[in-house]
């Protein structure tokens, strides 16, 4: 049988999507279903003095209208990660109510929910809800929020500070290292807020079955079991075994569908109140206002160098917005997913980061593709290219000079950073070397010089990133504030005929698990892929799981899968030994059969499967059946890395930036399906390009989201980007059975600084060193005008 691992197998899930047979939540219509429409605050900050629902209730087709008072006794949605203040004080964690009672804290905060017989009736009636607001002053900037006298988002959170935090070497040592440097590069950045914009808007259906006292929540989530846990144990107080979560096909997530949202709890709760299913699907404008945003950091970054260009120290101060309420994993993003990555791929001997997390009158900010790691990479890689320019060095040479030497994590324990992490394995120079070759770097520099002479502005930008994937192990993340375990679960059920059903707690919303996971199973058992079915996204069929985010599915979920596969093979070996009348140690399992070593005596996988379920002639004392579950809690994170190079041309007259080429060489460890990994890189890269050049979830000073629709929010379209030139090196992860690291976020982490660096390189003759993203024609044109 041909090996499936490492092959670009076409995706098995595609058939339903290309024929229109996918089943996304909004595709479901249940009998007797009602429709929900929210009344949302038009103000970023306002007292809610009264809500008059009488006219809405009288509207034809309206079933019910609820306001904040109806849920006053119910808990808010919880935060899943606690980061305490430097002085030990507990993180400020104000209630995030299902519907606001006293004050609206961001534009789009829900004030009432209307339930009606039809979508149209719900919408009409929502317009009839009369809310009496008293508008208050708002603050939207994460740094200004911490200033004395800033309007308070929560009255009991002084200076809007949720927590402060630091990490790294002692501050005085870092200060001394930087003070003693022969060169210091200093940059002040805004890593602008962006909207994740999965193309499927969030959609939920709550369905209470009174006969069995059981709830079903159909939800567009990345994270079905965690949603069940949070919904049951923390918000509604209903028993977990009475709740089923279904999230079959989900139209993209990029982080925004990890979190437990208020709307999920509301449709679940109200479906019991009404005895009818309740559906809510976000409109795009609601998605902009309420899907947790990403980034929104304001930072000052200083990097010191010695006379040879070796980094001597790094000092960072970051203000990070949490938005109006704490979303599920928000506190982890600017801290344990950001500060911990500041070693980058460099030998920087002294590092210190200081973070202040603030509440602002904006939509919540949480993990968005990369989550903290793009922000960290942006700081480091912008510093590196800027420093090279300032010191008159080549940006590639500066990196080669500072790379951590290669290590494989087998001959040595890995690389201990100054910011709490232990890298698993890495070999950083070859990815940059390969990217330079693909670029034709020397030729490009000649072309650039000629172009300049002819009045054309070409630029090249670099980014050599590292990231941390598959966040785990549970004990470590627990010590760092996570209120959840971060293991993964698999169940492998071999049927009597030798066909296999796999139940995984990982969740695919585009990643192609039905293919990749099946490739692993087919190879390990030596059976055709068609004999394997991958089931995910239903808490009644999948025992447990932690969902998909942080590029964790294969590294953690795939490892859990391998554990169950090994248990099946071990038990199969016992059965085969009995059938073949041989000792277990004399058997080998390969190509789908157990063979007595050195003989032609063998028995196939299907025979053993049947025997396990028809155990007439069977080992004494062995249980029948061939069905195993495993929980896998990894030993460490995994650390993919790579080198990205962007080449841009800037139009002198208009400031328009055209991305001419993008080269991405990534090392994501071993690869199961190269086609799928390339696709993940392409998509991530273009999302990162979007942040560099186009995207900004921009709040004005009154807290209005000015770019709150696709008419206003610029996202990459097909003709904004070139083909992405990709290649890989392979440095296996030493601590998981497949040697895989994770590929989902890499593209978005590496690409943004590469593009911005390229534009700065193009503008270097103008003396422009730093511009805030997105690099629109206007901002580039203004910079050129000085």
């Amino acid at each position, binding site marked *: 049988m041909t090996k499936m691992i490492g092959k670009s197998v*076409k*995706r098995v*899930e*595609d*058939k*339903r*999507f*290309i*024929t*229109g*047979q*996918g*089943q*996304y939540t*909004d*595709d479901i*219509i249940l009998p007797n279903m009602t429709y929900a429409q929210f009344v949302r605050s038009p103000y970023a900050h306002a007292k809610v003095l009264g809500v008059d629902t009488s006219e809405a209730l009288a509207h034809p087709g309206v079933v019910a209208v609820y306001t904040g008072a109806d849920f006053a006794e119910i808990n808010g949605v919880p935060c899943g990660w606690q980061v305490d203040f430097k002085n030990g004080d507990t993180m400020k964690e104000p209630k995030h109510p299902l519907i606001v009672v006293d004050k609206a804290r961001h534009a789009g905060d829900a004030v009432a929910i209307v339930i009606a017989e039809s*979508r*149209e009736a719900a919408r009409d009636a929502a317009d009839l809800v009369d809310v009496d607001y008293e508008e208050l002053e708002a603050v939207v900037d994460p740094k200004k929020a911490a200033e004395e006298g800033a309007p308070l988002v929560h009255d009991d959170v002084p200076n809007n500070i949720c927590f402060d935090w630091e990490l790294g070497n002692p501050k005085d040592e870092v200060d001394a290292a930087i003070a003693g440097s022969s060169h210091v590069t200093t940059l002040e950045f805004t890593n602008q807020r962006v909207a994740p*914009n*999965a*193309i*499927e*808007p969030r959609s939920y259906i709550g369905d209470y079955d009174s006969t069995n006292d059981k709830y079903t929540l159909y939800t567009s989530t990345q994270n079905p079991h965690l949603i069940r846990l949070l919904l049951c144990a923390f918000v509604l107080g209903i028993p977990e075994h009475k709740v089923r979560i279904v999230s079959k*096909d*989900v*139209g*993209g997530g*990029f982080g925004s569908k990890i979190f437990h949202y208020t709307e999920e709890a509301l449709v679940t709760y109200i479906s019991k109140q009404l005895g009818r299913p309740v559906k809510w*699907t976000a*409109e*795009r*404008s609601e998605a902009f206002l309420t899907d947790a945003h990403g980034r929104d950091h304001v930072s000052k970054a200083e990097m010191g160098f010695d006379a040879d260009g070796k980094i001597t120290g790094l000092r960072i101060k970051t203000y990070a917005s949490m938005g109006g309420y704490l979303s599920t994993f928000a506190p982890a993003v600017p801290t344990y997913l950001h500060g911990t990555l500041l070693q980058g791929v460099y030998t920087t001997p002294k590092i210190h980061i200081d973070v202040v997390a603030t509440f602002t009158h904006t939509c919540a900010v949480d993990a968005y593709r990369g989550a903290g790691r793009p922000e960290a990479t942006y700081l480091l890689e912008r510093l590196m290219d800027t420093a090279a320019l300032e010191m008159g060095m080549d940006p590639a040479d500066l990196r080669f000079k500072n790379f951590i030497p290669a290590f494989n994590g087998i001959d040595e324990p890995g690389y201990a950073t100054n910011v709490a992490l232990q890298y698993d394995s890495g070999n950083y120079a070859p990815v940059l070397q390969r990217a330079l070759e693909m670029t034709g770097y020397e030729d490009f520099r000649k072309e650039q010089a000629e172009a300049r002479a002819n009045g054309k502005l070409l630029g090249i930008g670099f980014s050599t990133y590292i990231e941390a994937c598959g966040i785990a192990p549970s004990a470590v993340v627990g010590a760092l504030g996570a209120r959840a375990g971060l293991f993964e679960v698999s169940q492998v059920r071999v049927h009597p005929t030798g066909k296999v059903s796999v139940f995984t707690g990982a969740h695919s*919303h*585009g*990643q*192609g698990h039905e293919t990749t996971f099946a490739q692993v199973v087919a190879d390990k058992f030596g059976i055709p892929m068609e004999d394997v079915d991958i089931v995910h996204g239903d808490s009644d069929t999948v025992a447990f799981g932690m969902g998909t985010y942080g590029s964790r599915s294969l590294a953690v979920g795939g490892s859990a899968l391998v554990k169950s596969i090994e248990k099946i093979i071990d038990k199969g070996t016992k059965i085969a030994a009995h059938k073949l009348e041989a000792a277990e140690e004399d058997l080998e399992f390969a190509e789908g059969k157990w063979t007595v070593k050195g003989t032609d005596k063998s028995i196939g996988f299907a025979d053993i499967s049947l025997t396990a379920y028809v155990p007439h002639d069977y080992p004494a004392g062995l249980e029948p059946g061939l069905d195993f579950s495993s929980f896998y809690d990894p030993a460490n994170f995994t650390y993919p890395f790579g080198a990205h190079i962007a080449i841009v041309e800037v139009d002198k007259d208009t400031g328009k930036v055209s991305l001419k080429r993008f080269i991405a060489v990534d090392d994501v460890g071993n690869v199961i399906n190269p*086609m*799928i990994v*390339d*696709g*993940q890189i*392409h*998509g*991530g*890269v*273009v*999302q990162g390009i979007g942040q560099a050049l186009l995207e900004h979830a921009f709040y004005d000073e009154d807290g209005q989201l000015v770019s709150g*629709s*696709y*008419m206003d929010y610029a*996202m*990459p*379209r*097909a*003709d904004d*980007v070139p*083909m*992405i030139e990709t290649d890989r090196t392979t440095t296996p992860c030493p601590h998981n059975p497949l040697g895989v690291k994770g590929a989902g976020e890499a*593209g978005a982490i590496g690409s943004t600084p590469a593009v911005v660096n390229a534009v700065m390189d193009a503008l270097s003759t103008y003396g422009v060193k730093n511009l805030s993203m997105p690099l629109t024609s206007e901002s580039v044109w203004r910079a050129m005008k000085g």
Partner: protein
Amino acid sequence: MKKQINLTVNGKAYSHEVEARLLLVHYLRDVLRLTGTHVGCDTSSCGSCTILMDGQAVKCCTLLAVQADGADITTIEGLADNGSLHPLQEGFKEKHGLQCGFCTPGMIMTAADLLSNNSDPSEQEIRHALEGNFCRCTGYHNIVKSIQYAANKINNKEVAS
């Protein structure tokens, strides 16, 4: 206010009395239960709802059902010919032109319009034709390749790997 509409969808004739305000996309999804046509925005910007109406790609989230009275409509469900995939459907599978699949029906219908007018488009022509369709997963790279695959297949050209 209700109005009678008669139209053909995927080769089948339908006659319904619909509210004048009913959007065509909701008629297709909720009344005919053809849920392959998706709603990704409310401003005609994302293209997830693209269908063929009288042979032309249109965004049916900003058309009323009553505007489709008398029209001949093809949705993603009607693109395959007696169970045999359209070259575009085949191309999207062969070239990994989709990940989450949500934008895919709209992409394919837009590309069908392009290929019916220009059976051998350049990369830039393909990218330009897709300007009205968002994909957040693929970075468009493999969507372009999928459409090139389909064009080559339609033109009986050797398909590049």
